[in-house]
């Protein structure tokens, strides 16, 4: 107080930067993420992400377990899309052990992975709007639709979020009778909802003002920083692992890869909306093509369903990657010929997408930093694994 009264007001203000801490408990950080911010007035001049508040030792635990026992743990990596996490892990181990997947199982996998993508994108947009200040209305709409898909998951796999449904060489059980029709009904309702959602948001002036030209990410930086998924595509690079690797049976489907032009928050939002529409297209084709019966697990892998302990892949290493809704989700597994992996590593897209957070936020206002973080779409379970 004394200092303030001593300095006359006519003198030039000696401004200082302000250091603030956002998180780990903060409503806008999507969990327990922490940002060390330095502000000049309201403008961000430095930002350091601090993580590890949800470091659950996934890799250590997986290295101490049988291969199959890590499957339920992968659900908890990115807890919005357990099915795609299962998919990535199953692909890596199948590569390691040389297991083929029967056709019907492949179709089931693709259908579920695309449903997961819809679940993820719809909730992400809900959360993004939450960060923008449209508190809860879009999120409630989004979660209403999400619940309908989760009902399907529960019917198929037995759990709303932690599905644990994929197995090496196939899936755990066949689909319950009549399920494909129910997916169809869901698909009939969903585009209408999506139109409604877009009417609510896409042309909304506030959304446009807050999102356009905010957090612009250039193509070169996006590529160099290892970004993937909607983040990379919003920056103008149509790189989709479903198209590039054609893993599983994605080569059979006709779909487009939406690409943004500017790489700002609005593009990232809109790419996700378009991706949901493409997912519906894939779903539609998959539902038409799926064989009505057939094996759901390969003959070679079927005995290990009952005895996961006997599953011992030969010595070697494998890297399996899928296009998870967040980006490139990779699993790196090294086998030493025993029932548990020697090394198990997750290439977490959420973590690597955070590399550019500082570059995106510098020069913007503090409130925009929240929106940019929301548009990167992180899930802390995956960031910290």
């Amino acid at each position, binding site marked *: 107080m004394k200092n303030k009264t001593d300095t006359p007001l006519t003198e030039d203000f000696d401004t200082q930067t302000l250091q603030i801490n956002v998180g780990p408990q903060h409503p806008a950080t999507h969990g327990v993420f922490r940002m060390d911010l330095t502000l000049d007035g309201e403008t961000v001049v430095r930002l350091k992400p601090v993580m590890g508040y949800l470091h659950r030792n996934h890799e250590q635990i997986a290295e101490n377990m049988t291969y199959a026992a890590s499957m339920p743990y992968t659900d908890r990596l990115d807890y919005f899309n357990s099915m795609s996490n299962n998919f990535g892990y199953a692909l890596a181990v199948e590569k390691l052990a040389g297991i083929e997947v029967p056709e019907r199982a492949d179709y089931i996998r693709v259908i579920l992975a695309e449903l997961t993508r819809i679940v993820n994108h719809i909730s992400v947009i809900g959360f993004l709007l939450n960060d923008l200040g449209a508190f809860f209305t879009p999120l409630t709409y989004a979660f209403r639709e999400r619940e309908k898909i989760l009902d399907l998951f529960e019917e198929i796999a*037995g759990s709303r979020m932690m599905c644990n449904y994929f197995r090496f060489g196939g899936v755990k059980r066949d689909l319950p009778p009549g399920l494909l029709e129910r997916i169809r009904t869901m698909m009939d309702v969903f585009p209408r909802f999506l139109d409604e959602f877009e009417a609510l948001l896409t042309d909304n002036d506030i959304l446009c003002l807050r999102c356009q030209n905010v957090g612009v990410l250039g193509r070169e930086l996006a590529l160099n920083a290892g970004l993937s998924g909607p983040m990379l595509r919003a920056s103008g690079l149509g790189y989709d692992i479903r198209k590039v690797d054609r893993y599983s049976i994605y080569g059979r489907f006709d779909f487009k890869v939406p690409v943004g032009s500017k790489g700002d928050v609005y593009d990232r939002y809109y790419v996700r909306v378009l991706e949901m529409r493409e997912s519906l297209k894939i779903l539609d084709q998959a539902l038409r093509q799926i064989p009505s019966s057939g094996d759901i697990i390969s003959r070679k892998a079927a005995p290990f369903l009952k005895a996961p302990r006997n599953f011992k892949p030969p010595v070697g290493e494998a890297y399996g990657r899928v296009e998870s809704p967040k980006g490139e989700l990779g699993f790196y597994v090294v086998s030493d010929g025993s029932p548990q992996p020697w090394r198990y590593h997750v290439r977490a897209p959420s973590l690597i997408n955070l590399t550019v957070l500082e570059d995106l936020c510098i020069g913007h206002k503090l409130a925009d930093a929240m929106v940019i973080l929301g548009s990167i779409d992180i899930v802390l379970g995956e960031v910290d694994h």
Partner: protein
Amino acid sequence: MIFGAGILKGMLVTLRSFVNSYFKKPDQGGLFTVEYPEKRLVAKERFRNFPFLVYDEKPEDPRCVACDICAKECPPKCITIVRDADAEGRPLKKPALFDIDLSVCMNCGICEEACPFDAIFMDHEFEIAGTERHQSLLYHKEDLLKSNGYFRQIRPSDAALIDARRKEAEDKKKAALKPAAPPEKKE
């Protein structure tokens, strides 16, 4: 475009949604809420929460033979089994102690998959909340045992399959025993 048109369009959506909630069916955009304690969602057959043990006739004779497979395969190792023994100390084919620590269980359903004796299944009950965790969330054999009738009730189609399979296996066993009987008589 006039500024604010987008907002008005959005408002229209919320208004429509409000009106729809009174006149439409839940899955068509109507009132979606399930008023939980009074009304409940129909439990999906495959829904899995915590494991339970099945017995056929008496709770004293569970299907479980204490083979320890589920305990070994359980990813977070929440199951502890001690095999029962008779008076002379010979091991019996049933558990003396079967504990599941609900505060560790991750509802993955691997015990159900790995069990070769159809003895452990995932329950639908989720209304478990305790004020204390060391005792009330450690379920013993007595708390876990439930009848096959209960299993049929919560998962009718799975139970039908498993019952048929068990009956077939039993018939086969009987059939295998029968030819063995006549030679004995001859002697």
